[in-house]
């Protein structure tokens, strides 16, 4: 232990890195986790959070047995976190009345794993309480003398496994499968556990019908969709009443009316996105979003077509904007805002994705600074995620063009060699200010953009 806490390195050690041994000197107790309740006579010992990433812990062994007398600082239980095994010691003198989570089992951080009482006479009371824990672990504990428990509710029940939509009408519970075998690759099993997907409900696409990782991912992705219609069925709005505009709604309204003074026109285009989708799949694990990819692609096309990135404000002159700032429309809290990715042509896709995430978080928290939403030179509005295949956007005043992006969908197409093929295609529709941008400009821009999207390797540098 002394070696572990070597002075020069102590600051570097996260608690999780400390490999604890039993019976260390009391002087070091301060670094240990104390996981006991103070208020009640029957105290609960909780599963401590031993590292910042720990969500549940496994009981390696109980150092103390039920009925043992414990002194403050005695180790009670060894807990295995995602990083290491650690001793958890009691903060109080008393008796270990009941073990709620036996060795070998896991419990979420913060849930009670044992009960501690002050005197031997209380042990039976605690044990009957423990029985109620085990009979219905999700029910709140009986109120009795442990009033303070209200402050910390018992552990939430484990989330029910998400049923996964598959061809089977009603996936039977695993128990009924008895001897039935599920052939799933090791990683698929791991994912299924992490994503809480029932392997019995999946049809495998691997060799010999084996379930592979992508089957589990697909099932997990499909699962939430099933639950969304329920809350969406009846939005909670005060019907029949007239509401004044909020500030943000007012601003949108003003801009929309102003846009009527701008003579706009529209040009549509269809992109084949198989390559873009493949790229997205490959790098989405690194935090890259489709929005960032589209913004990046548009920015790269704009480099070659500066006129589409220009703007006309007074009707007499126009400005070739010096930087390419891509604004992306997002809906927030009933309003519409366009966070801006500045210099999107110069920033790499990973940084751009991070920047986008940061902007969205800020927008949600209503902390965007004015320059972060009104400095856009080109706007993207994407409704593809709702299944919209095409739409028409209104040009925000002060910019040259806005691109409306539809969903990428499997489409039957005639291929160059005269056959019929299936490709993922996406329709876009650009609205532009015809005072400065003409039809041929937009057409050339869209052609460049389509080349970038159909061969997207340059998006990642």
């Amino acid at each position, binding site marked *: 232990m002394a070696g*572990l806490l070597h002075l020069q390195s102590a600051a570097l050690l996260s608690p999780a890195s400390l490999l604890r041994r039993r019976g260390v000197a009391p002087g070091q107790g301060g670094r240990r986790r104390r996981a006991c309740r103070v208020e009640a006579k029957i105290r609960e010992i909780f599963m401590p959070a031993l590292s910042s990433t720990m969500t549940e812990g496994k009981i390696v062994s109980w150092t103390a047995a039920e009925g043992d007398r414990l002194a403050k600082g005695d180790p009670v239980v060894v807990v295995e976190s995602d990083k290491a095994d650690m001793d958890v010691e009691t903060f109080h003198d008393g008796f270990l009345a009941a073990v709620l989570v036996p060795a070998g089992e896991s419990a979420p951080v913060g849930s009670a794993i044992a009960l501690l009482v002050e005197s031997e006479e209380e042990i039976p009371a605690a044990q009957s309480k423990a029985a109620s824990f085990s009979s219905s672990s999700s029910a709140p504990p009986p109120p009795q003398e442990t009033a303070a428990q209200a402050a910390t509710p018992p552990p939430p029940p484990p989330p029910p496994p998400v049923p996964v939509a598959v061809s089977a009408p009603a996936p039977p519970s695993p128990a009924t499968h008895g001897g039935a075998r599920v052939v799933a690759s090791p990683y698929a099993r791991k994912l299924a556990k992490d994503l809480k997907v029932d392997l019995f409900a999946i049809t495998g696409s691997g060799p010999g019908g084996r379930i592979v990782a992508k089957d589990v991912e697909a099932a997990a992705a499909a699962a939430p969709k099933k639950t969304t219609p329920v809350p969406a069925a009846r939005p909670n709005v005060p019907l029949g009443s007239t509401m004044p505009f909020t500030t943000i709604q007012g601003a949108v309204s003003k801009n929309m009316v102003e846009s009527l003074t701008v003579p706009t026109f529209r040009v549509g285009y269809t992109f084949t996105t198989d390559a873009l989708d493949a790229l997205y799949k490959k790098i989405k694990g690194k935090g890259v979003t489709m929005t960032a990819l589209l913004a990046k692609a548009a920015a790269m096309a704009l480099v070659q077509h500066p006129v589409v990135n220009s703007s006309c404000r007074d009707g007499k002159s126009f400005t070739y904007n010096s930087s390419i700032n891509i604004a992306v429309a997002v809906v927030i809290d009933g309003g519409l805002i366009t966070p801006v990715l500045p210099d999107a042509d110069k920033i790499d896709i990973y940084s751009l994705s991070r920047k986008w995430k940061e902007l969205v978080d800020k927008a949600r928290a209503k902390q965007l600074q004015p320059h972060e939403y009104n400095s856009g030179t080109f706007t993207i509005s994407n409704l593809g995620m709702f299944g919209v295949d095409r739409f028409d956007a209104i040009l925000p005043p002060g910019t040259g063009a806005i691109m409306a992006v539809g969903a990428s969908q499997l489409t039957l197409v005639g291929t160059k060699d005269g056959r019929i093929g299936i490709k993922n295609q996406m329709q876009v529709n650009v609205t532009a200010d015809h005072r400065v941008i003409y039809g041929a400009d937009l057409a050339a821009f869209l052609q460049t953009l389509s080349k970038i999207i159909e061969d997207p390797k340059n998006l990642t540098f």
Partner: protein
Amino acid sequence: MNTAAAASVSAPAVASARGPTRSARRAGGIRVCGLRGDALECRSLRISQAAVRRAVVARAAENGVAGSGGFDYDLVIIGAGVGGHGAALHAVEEGLKTAIIEGDIVGGTCVNRGCVPSKALLAVSGRMRELHDDHHMKSLGLQVSSPGYDRQAVADHANNLASKIRSNLTNSMKALGVDILTGFGTIVGKQKVRYGKVGFPDKEITARNIIIATGSVPFVPKGIEVDGKTVFTSDHALKLESVPDWIAIVGSGYIGLEFSDVYTALGSEVTFVEALDQLMPGFDPEIAKLAQRVLINPRKIDYHTGVFASKITPAKDGKPVLIELIDAKTKDHKETLEVDAALIATGRAPFTKGLGLENINVVTQRGFIPVDERMQVMDADGNVVPNLYCIGDANGKLMLAHAASAQGISVVEQISGRDHILNHLSIPAACFTHPEISMVGLTEPQAREKAGKEGFEISVVKTSFKANTKALAENEGDGIAKLIYRPDTGEILGVHILGLHAADLIHEASNAIALGTRVQDIKYAVHAHPTLSEVLDELFKAAKLQPREELKHKPKPSRPPPQPLLKVLTFITSLLSTQKQNRQPYFTEEPLTNLRKGSSH
């Protein structure tokens, strides 16, 4: 020794004409897998070293002159693996006329089908792992886009490395004038060997001393059909002819573990099948547990423990590889796995058939040749067979390349007139996963058992790589080092390391054990900062000894270095032999030898 020197005094003139000098040989980089095993005797060696070296330069240049008695050779070694090679080199150095018989290719398992090519694959897997670890790369500020690999090029790297090391080995022996005889060797009588094609040993030579160093082959339990394509052993796997999507690895000892590192880095998913209840049964339990957290759980690996693979059928007619699992205790059928490939890593079996042992009344024990602590072969009646030795995997004492080499050197010391006993507890072992695992001496349970029997206390201290500057600079803070020692005497009983470059770090500990250095002395040794070696520095400094006053009242065991070590050796040997008898037919890797069989390097 002096007589040996005298015998070759007449040689110097020939010497310079015939071959390179000793220093030239040194530069040739021939110590591939070997380890100088002089540890215990180092003091006596050191005294005369300068003089010996001068004499050796003269003698080493020529492959000795056969000693008295009219033998063709002073020493004939059967098997040119790392053990035979180490013995041959040392024998020439000692002025013995030496021949080595090789029936296959020089280098044996280590160089051709073991440590060497596997290290090439592991070098690739280590880099792939780093490049694929986005989090790691990002935290270092690096950006790498989707790394890939060319399977054939990886396989070629392993193959080229083996060829290169093999030619180094061959050249080093040729340069010294060791006679390399081709064919399978058979002992036909006392000090008499025949060699030639299998079954037709047509040439006969006599030798004053004979060393058997025939090594081992992968062990395949019955019920398993090896086709070399979808069901295979490490011999095939090292050729990397395919990278299956899903591979089952039968046996989670160091061979299985290293291959799981390679396969998962190259994109495979792995299922371990382990007969014992715990994965990595040969390791210190605490290390095994941490290794599971670092090397198994975060990777695309799952496992079945406490089961035998009773039947494995290769893939054919579009059907996958089928693995029947039965409960290791009840023998009930448990499950059938369907995978793309299966690697059989259940240990290694000695290669001792056809040696003609019946001619000299020697009976093998499950294939292993029985030897005493001086590697002298024992006959069926338990008597030493004079002038016959067996080293390396064939005797099963410690199935590691460097152990074989050390045993060979120890034997040459003896036949040169200096008694020598190798301390097997000072021989380190390593598993070259990412991060690496290494160990020397006893595991904690072994140490506790020994302590209980002999009535002393043990203490354990640990240090973490997370507290090491260099490890943190590399962003590789996973790992611990663990020291098991006697708090009364400061004797080091075992050291276990899991972490970055653990295989290179262990030698400070193994040297300390070999030289009898105690904790209270080694803790004052200085380590460069910042280095990974400071992990061990901290470890030794963390060890607390019992205060002197307390010691005075205790009966103090007097401790001249070699004796306790010998006791430990005897203890281990007895431990091994009992376990071997109880060995399940299926699982040949018992704790201790398990990890160490043929490990590396």
